[in-house]
């Protein structure tokens, strides 16, 4: 077995077992890594459940890899106070350090794998924020933002492992926008970086990559009429009896990442029914399963990712 320095969630014991001939060198490297950490940022809090008040309703949360910082998107209070809450974490104590104000309410947030950029899907814009400046207290860490001018309801963002492509799900725009992130970082955060849009059904949200990075899975809350899926779901509101059926199920949609870069309009390779109003997704560590919350089925659905491959019912492209 080759000895590869795993960039994500490496495990000391596993590495030592796999790479015994490199044990000495690894031991030195790990010691250096430990010394590079000034504090035990990752230490769990004394209480099994700790609650930290925030200035306004939070949408998403993402911690930094070293565990020393936590970023939370704040949706604001009636048009003011939207921004990114920056919380410092050390020895089990978490404190609000600052709020970086944003003009548009951020929802989904994601960090680049080089850890230098935070991208926020923010209702009618995609916003790019410099992480070192944000945690260093610089006056304006926002590097740029762009909007395609319509109320698309940008809600989630995710980035390929190589930091080259950014995907933003547009809940009101029935699409996932593909952005050349490498170009945007080099040439400026403008709409010129938009490669195109992937048709993603009604109200797409989740953006989860397969472990090999080849596929991107998204959720769509209800099948579009032209898919001809039978109606199976009640309207999504409290107190409506199950017997009233007005909407079709939603879907898990499979996107071919390589195709999305060249031909976004034809990058969807499969869609499978996923209960009533599927809205979020998580992937197992091995990548063999994805789990989806079906908000209007009051259920979690599990899918075998090996079976989420191109399906025959997709329209032919080309």
């Amino acid at each position: 077995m080759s000895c590869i320095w795993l960039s994500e969630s490496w495990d000391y014991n596993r590495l030592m077992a796999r790479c015994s001939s490199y044990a000495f060198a690894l031991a030195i490297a790990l010691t250096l890594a430990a010394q590079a950490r000034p504090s035990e940022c990752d230490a769990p809090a004394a209480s099994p459940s700790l609650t930290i008040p925030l200035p306004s309703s939070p949408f998403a949360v993402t911690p930094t890899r070293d565990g020393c910082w936590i970023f939370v998107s704040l949706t604001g209070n009636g048009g003011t106070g939207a921004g990114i809450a920056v919380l410092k974490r050390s020895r089990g104590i978490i404190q609000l350090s600052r709020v970086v104000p944003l003009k548009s309410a951020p929802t989904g947030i994601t960090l680049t794998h080089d850890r230098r950029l935070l991208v926020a899907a923010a209702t009618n814009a995609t916003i790019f924020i410099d992480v070192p400046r944000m945690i260093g207290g610089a006056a304006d860490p926002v590097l740029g933002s762009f909007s395609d001018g319509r109320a698309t309801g940008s809600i989630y963002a995710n980035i390929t492992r190589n930091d080259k492509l950014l995907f933003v799900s547009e809940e009101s725009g029935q699409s996932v926008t593909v952005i050349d992130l490498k170009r945007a970082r080099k040439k400026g955060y403008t709409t010129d970086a938009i490669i195109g849009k992937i048709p993603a059904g009604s109200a797409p949200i989740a953006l989860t990559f397969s472990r090999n990075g080849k596929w991107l899975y998204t959720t769509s809350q209800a099948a579009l009429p032209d898919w001809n899926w039978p109606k199976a779901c009640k309207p999504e509101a409290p107190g409506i009896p199950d017997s009233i059926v007005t909407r079709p199920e939603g879907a898990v949609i499979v996107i071919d990442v390589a195709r999305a870069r060249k031909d976004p309009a034809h990058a969807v390779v499969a869609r499978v029914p996923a209960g009533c109003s599927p809205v979020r997704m998580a992937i197992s560590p091995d990548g063999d399963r994805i789990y989806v919350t079906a908000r209007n089925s009051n259920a979690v659905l599990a899918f075998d990712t090996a079976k989420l491959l191109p399906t025959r019912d997709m329209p032919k492209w080309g």
Partner: protein
Amino acid sequence: MGIAPVGDAPVPVTVLDKGQKVVAGNSNRFAAGNAPQTLVVLDAGKISEGLNAVLGVIPVGAFPREMAVSADRRTLFLTNFGSKTLQVLDIAHLPIDTNLPPEIAANAAALAHRSERREITVDGKILNGYTGVYQTPDGPALLIALNGNQLTAKIGMQPEMNILPESDTMFFLRPGMQIEFPKIDAGQGNADQVILHQTGRDITAKRLDDAAAKPFLDAGSAFAKRLKNQTPAPGSEAAMRKMIEDLQLGKPDSDLMNADSFAALRRELERLPTPIAQLGSLQSVTFTEVGPGGADIYHVKFEKGSLDYRIWLGPDGKIEAFSLR
């Protein structure tokens, strides 16, 4: 490959313990207001066993929305949108309660029957026989109309709502409220009455003949036109100006409005941050829009402040309802 019941309106989901556990947050976003909710912890190995997969629940804040796990996999972060908090959970010591809230079993039972659900469609000719105006004994008229193949109901001045078939004769209006039509044959005449089932109370409304129904149908189509064109009801601005003038003088006029509105006046005025008499002289009135609820909405500027004024004018020219903000 599997489906497991959780609580109401689940949103966030994540995987813990090397894939052995799946955690979902019950947002209950459509019904709970700001009440605390739970996360449900599922055994991933039992995901296809329904309720058996549920290990327990973890108490969290209102509207749990998104989760993230630290890189060292020891800490779970959760945003509680409704509570305006970040909740931080130690994954090795999750406070799991094995007493499950009753909705999880109820949701499991509903899932078991999900494959039986079919859309109920009612013959358009039967629906056509239901349309008309029905009069309740002491209350408002009920206008049943057909929009394409969608049956709608409008009670008094309330906004028109889609009503959804539970059978050929029973239609759902809103939680706790159904409309029942008598059984009629397709193309064979009209329903002569409807029964409003409202939380245990049944109200029978009789069909009005064409002449009696006409003013209601005219008012309905006039409103639809005003909503489309965004034009206020004739006389609504004058009635509003008169009412404000009276209130500033401290002499509200009971002839200007119906009895219900006059009774609600004091309560409505007490809600205002500044008493209306202290706002100074009226400077300008701007018509904003016809709201989806049927109100003419005006923005009223005074010397020392402003008000948003919603007014519903009845067919007799009296104020049927209003609100001041």
